[in-house]
């Protein structure tokens, strides 16, 4: 499989994810505001002894979808990186920029995991009477691992940027 084929496939996947994400949010909002009854089968009868309101359920689901945004951004940059590779631009400032962005997106995804969970729980239990609302705060080892991978990828991108500048400088010498 060539770089251009991979780039095209990733680009299509990224656009598909963007479309799916947008549709997901629109659908959730529409479901909660226009057809709350449609959400009923998905809503658990009771969560920790509390009843769940359809609007809160949809808002919590929409909040949990937030974590997909950095993943889609990483996918878009991966597609652009491969497209550059297909054009023969391997050790360039632009390629380094895409690698740094992929690393940053993975790190943001890792950091976003905990607040997204907190937000979903808060939204889910917001309509409950005082004393029965939940605020869950936590950070998993998976998130930490992802943060390290993202940071490492960002560092590789930063190193590649320096290498690309050195290569560009050397290219001017005969």
């Amino acid at each position, binding site marked *: 499989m060539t770089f251009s084929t991979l780039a095209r496939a990733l680009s299509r996947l990224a656009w598909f994810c963007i479309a799916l994400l947008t549709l997901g949010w629109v659908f959730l909002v529409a479901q909660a505001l226009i057809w709350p009854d449609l959400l009923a089968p998905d809503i658990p009868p009771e969560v920790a002894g509390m009843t769940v309101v359809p609007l809160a359920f949809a808002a919590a689901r929409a909040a949990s979808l937030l974590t997909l945004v950095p993943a889609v951004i990483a996918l878009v940059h991966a597609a652009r990186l491969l497209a550059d590779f297909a054009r023969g631009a391997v050790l360039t400032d632009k390629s380094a920029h895409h690698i740094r962005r992929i690393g940053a997106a993975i790190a943001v995804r890792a950091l976003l995991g905990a607040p997204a969970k907190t937000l979903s729980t808060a939204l889910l239990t917001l309509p409950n009477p005082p004393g029965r609302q939940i605020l869950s705060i936590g950070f998993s080892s998976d998130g930490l691992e992802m943060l390290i991978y993202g940071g490492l990828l960002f560092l590789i991108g930063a190193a590649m940027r320096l290498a690309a500048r050195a290569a560009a*400088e050397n290219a*001017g*010498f*005969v």
Partner: protein
Amino acid sequence: MRIVVRLDVMLARRKMRSRELAERIGITEANLSLLKAGKVKGMRFETLAAICDALDCQPGDLLEAVAEDHGS
């Protein structure tokens, strides 16, 4: 101040063609052409030594520092 490459002058003096020089010093004709036109950022000592060796000259015969023409 800028550096001007006088390679074409030395080539004419030695009656050598660019193609032959490029072959002798091991660089492409395209790069030698860029060097002659002064369209390169710099020259490696290795290349300079090879040119001096091929043309039997000194670096000073190939390079000249001239004052910048700032214009009016």
